[in-house]
């Protein structure tokens, strides 16, 4: 889900949480204490890249998807589509 929030454009941690909350209609409210270690982990794994960017008079760490991150997102999305379709077919 974090990767998906960065698909269109890069964002800093606060904005990622906002996008996640808005897109899910307030269903997914990820705790900050979970988000930042996850961002660092994804970056260490080569799925995200980050850089400092000036904004509102202060430095912000902005994350963007790498090529590997996009490939991973596409794969996860495909898995999810298959899985959710199967669940839907069973419970509908």
């Amino acid at each position: 889900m974090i990767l998906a929030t960065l698909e269109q454009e890069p964002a800093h941690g606060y904005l990622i949480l906002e996008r996640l909350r808005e897109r899910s209609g307030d269903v997914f409210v990820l705790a900050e204490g979970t988000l930042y270690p996850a961002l660092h982990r994804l970056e260490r794994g080569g799925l995200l890249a980050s850089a400092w960017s000036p904004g509102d008079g202060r430095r912000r760490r902005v994350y963007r998807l790498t090529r590997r991150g996009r490939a991973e997102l596409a794969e996860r999305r495909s898995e999810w589509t298959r899985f959710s379709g199967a669940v839907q077919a069973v419970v509908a």
Partner: protein
Amino acid sequence: MSYVDELARELVAVGIRGGQRERILAEVDDHLRSDPEAESRFGPPRELANAFAADAGTTESRRAAVIAFGALAVAGIVYAIVFAGFGRASHLSDPPLASLAFFVIVLAPQIAFVAGALALLRVWRGRERGVLSSAERTVLARRTNLALGAGLATMAALLVYAVEIRSSVSGWLVAFTLAGAGAACVLLVVAIVPAVRAARLRPQIAGPAGDVFDDLRLIGYRARPWRFALLVAGLAGLGVWLAGIAGADPIDGFIRGVFEALACLGGFALLGRYLSLRS
């Protein structure tokens, strides 16, 4: 004390320093400026610092094991060429220092290979898991460190041996040994750096250490570890004996095979608990 100050202290406590620490603090500080109420959702500073250290520690420990094995592989190639060059001449007449070096040359690479391979196996087995427990990281670090130490001892012994017997072997072999083993020593020392970096991180993550039976998926032997040790020692001894037979020297091969098996059992007794080969 503010949340960020407290986090700064906790990050140091778990071994996160320098640029990484500054980055985390800047990100948290920026987030709290945007949303001051987020402090409670960050969780206690100690837990947040521990989460960062657990992730980083897992990555660094795995990386250290893989880099160590890579360096040992290069050292192993040097060793194979040099050892083949020294031949199978009797070493009974070697000077005392050369005899001691030869003993290390025979024993230490086996320890390096077993410890390094077990470290790599643990990395491979746990590759799908997000975070390693503290106990598991300790096992990984012990295997990596012992492999590097034994590898360095082997290369140092090769250097000593080449110098001690330089008058009785060809000049090119002595030169190659000095250059190859020297370069391998440098590579192994460089491989210590990631191991030290991994050791600096000290997250507290509960969980079992696991043993060699987890690594090899041989859970049935856990209750009878010495039976497993006898099996491995027997196979190693048999392998050496067969090599002796292939080399048209079955008696010598048999004697070497017995020593090999005894060395395996000795290693299991001495290092078994340290390397988590048995509990």
